[in-house]
């Protein structure tokens, strides 16, 4: 069929069907805290604002993020930058009772990168035992599962979660998850078996051990680099008053150690541990969200110390709602003050040659102010103060940036 005709029919169908919004804003900060308290990061994938299409079981949704940025590194600036960071579309369908499907497709940087971030079937046997299979998002930390732009008060994703851990890293896999509530307490678990990383985590143009490099390997959707299984495990507990804390692990053999039946290298493991938490301080309604992760990679002794065997990093976000009131026609428009403090060390260790500490690290302080006309949309103004130090621990390079951005579900 002619492409134009095909798209026209789809568009017409979308507009002519009797659509109505089915908004679940409970994961959106600062949200309706009564409902939010019953949800955990585990459920972030499904708890998004969707629009149902007539009486069909399918629902559509998505979000977009766009920024203006003025950045300067040691006095050198590329000038004004208008960025369209991403457009994400998601669709879900309740196939029958207890069987759900959800897919998330992301177009980054004007479709320079198109990825199926999530496309999995969920079967609920009981709240404590659900099966999931397809393209899954590995629950290492919380950001990987809960990364939608409109949920955050910052224009940029956390450094450690995007440049140390591979944010929104997804891969084919299967697993189980479940949740149990006990009065004010909830507990959840997730366990997945999936394909893993590849050699690119230590052979890449970033000149460092860089787990996100594995996202460039498009073959991972049909062929595992080494035929071994990666495991991802997460446990989390939540108290309605105190908040949620989760611990997670992801690991497995990452390298191609055998080719055509011939051993060509030792088996080398990567292990990632993460701890995440979020809470709201009752008196001030301040949101605190944080995550910290540690990466351990078996790098060959005969390779270069440029590629670290240990990494660590994390962030903490503090978001203080200033006021909520009616502005124009927005009944619950909110202004928030926020700050993010983050740190990444891509190479924790000491040089064999000198015994001195290896650098390759970054710190960032990012205050901001955000305005939410509704829970679905956010206008953000951030200032970033970033210091990066090279491998040799030379004088840190300072980068400052002013960023204004919008992000909205639709």
């Amino acid at each position: 069929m002619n492409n134009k005709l095909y798209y026209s029919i789809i568009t017409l169908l979308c507009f002519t069907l009797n659509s109505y919004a089915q908004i679940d804003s409970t994961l959106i900060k600062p949200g309706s805290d009564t409902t939010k308290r019953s949800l955990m990061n585990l459920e972030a994938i499904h708890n998004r604002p969707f629009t149902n299409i007539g009486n069909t079981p399918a629902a559509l949704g998505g979000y977009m993020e766009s920024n203006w940025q003025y950045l300067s590194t040691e006095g050198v600036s590329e000038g004004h930058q208008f960025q369209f960071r991403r457009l994400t579309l998601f669709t879900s369908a309740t196939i029958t009772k207890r069987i759900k499907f959800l897919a998330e497709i992301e177009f980054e940087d004007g479709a320079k990168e198109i990825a199926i971030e999530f496309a999995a079937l969920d079967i609920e046997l009981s709240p404590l035992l659900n099966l999931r299979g397809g393209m899954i998002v590995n629950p290492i930390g919380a950001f990987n599962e809960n990364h939608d732009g409109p949920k955050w008060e910052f224009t940029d994703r956390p450094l450690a979660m995007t440049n140390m851990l591979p944010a929104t890293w997804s891969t084919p896999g299967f697993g189980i998850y479940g949740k149990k509530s006990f009065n004010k307490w909830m507990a959840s678990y997730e366990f997945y078996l999936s394909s893993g990383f590849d050699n690119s985590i230590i052979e890449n143009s970033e000149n460092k051990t860089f787990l996100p490099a594995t996202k460039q390997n498009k073959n991972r959707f049909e062929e595992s680099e080494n035929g071994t299984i990666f495991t991802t495990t997460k446990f989390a507990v939540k108290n309605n008053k105190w908040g949620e804390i989760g611990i997670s692990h992801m690991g497995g053999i990452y390298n191609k150690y055998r080719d055509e039946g011939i051993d060509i290298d030792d088996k080398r493991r990567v292990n990632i541990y993460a701890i995440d938490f979020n809470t709201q301080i009752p008196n001030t309604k301040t949101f605190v969200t944080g995550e910290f992760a540690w990466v351990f990679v078996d790098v060959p002794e005969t390779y270069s110390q440029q590629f670290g065997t240990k990494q660590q990093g994390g962030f903490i976000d503090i978001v203080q709602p200033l006021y909520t009131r009616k502005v124009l026609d927005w009944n619950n428009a909110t202004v928030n003050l926020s700050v993010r403090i983050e740190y990444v060390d891509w190479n924790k260790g000491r040089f064999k040659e000198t015994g001195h500490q290896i650098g390759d690290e970054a710190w960032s302080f990012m205050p901001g102010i955000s305005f939410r006309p509704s829970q679905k949309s956010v206008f953000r103004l951030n200032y970033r103060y970033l210091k990066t130090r090279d491998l040799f621990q030379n004088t840190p390079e300072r980068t400052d940036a002013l960023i204004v951005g919008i992000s909205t579900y639709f």
Partner: protein
Amino acid sequence: MKKTNTLIIILAGILCSVACQKILPAAPEDHDLLDGSVQGLNNEQAARFGRGDLTFNNKIFTSETGLGPIFVATSCGSCHPGDGKGHPFTSLTRFGQTDDTGNKFHTQGGPQLQNRALPGYQPETIPPGATFSTFTPPMVTGLGFLDLVSDADILAMAKKNENNIDGIRGQPNWITLPSYIKPKENAIARYDGKYIARFGLKASVYDLLHQTVEALNQDIGITSIYNPIDQWSGQPIEPEILASEVHNLVFYLQTLKAPIQRNPENHTIKAGKSLFKSIGCEGCHRETLKTGTSLITALNKVEFHPYTDLLVHDMGSELDDKYTEGTAKTSEWRTAPLWGLGLVKNSQGGKYFLMHDGRAKSIEEAILLHGGEAKVSRDRYKELPNEDKSQLTAFLESL
């Protein structure tokens, strides 16, 4: 109330628009940086400098783009961060030559050890019986000026030393040119067809093309049309870098600015400079040289101040690693240009790793390691009162 809110929004907008200029960091002073081009490049030359800069400082080689499989570093910038002097982490090990009859270990990986390897490969080890030396990568700024010093001037500096009462002699290092190198205009050849080399710690590299091609090949494992030999297999393979990219790198090195002295009029620094001359350091570390003709205006027939004579000198037994290159003796090292010395720490993690292998952890330690032809000057330095020593150090750090 509405008016107040509108006013606040307008003020916030104005604040934001001027904030870019006010709160973003200012660029460091030119004299505090080693990178940057010589003045007066035209637009075409500046663009080419930028392309070379990208390859030198930003291009990371991987197995997909030709790295190794045995190598020392993954990029040019790894060894010369910020175009400065390297760190012991990226020091090179050279082995296998003890005199001017050449390297006896060419078939066993000589002259350079590739001490790292891609996963699944084994790096080289020093063959039994081979002597070796460790080389800390030098800074790369100002090389275009040194490249344009005429052979006649270098020979003249050697001749001038013949009757030096401090025992300074110094001679050029002569090498056989690789097939891809054309002798410079007005080059002076020796009776045996060898030419004067000037780059590298032993002055065994003829020009910046020679330096670039061999560094790509020996340090990173990148073959080119100029040197297609793969270090791992010893066999010629397809070029792993475009010739145009090699030429851009060469142009970048040619047009990197010379380090700029800081506070030259400062009283202490001026006193230190007088001491530097009076104790005889300038016998080898010549303050002023001049370039020949160049199509690049900033390099054309100008005087510059590198504090070197581009000759190799006997530095005594303590610095004799029993390894050499070209016609230099094992105890002979090229006079290190002192320009940029005060900025060395900025690329070595805030510490000094001086002399050819980084063994000196301070300027004073480096001076005290001078022996051989430099012994007389070193002994004069030892006799200086502490205040004078401080002035001399201040001068050297200002370079």
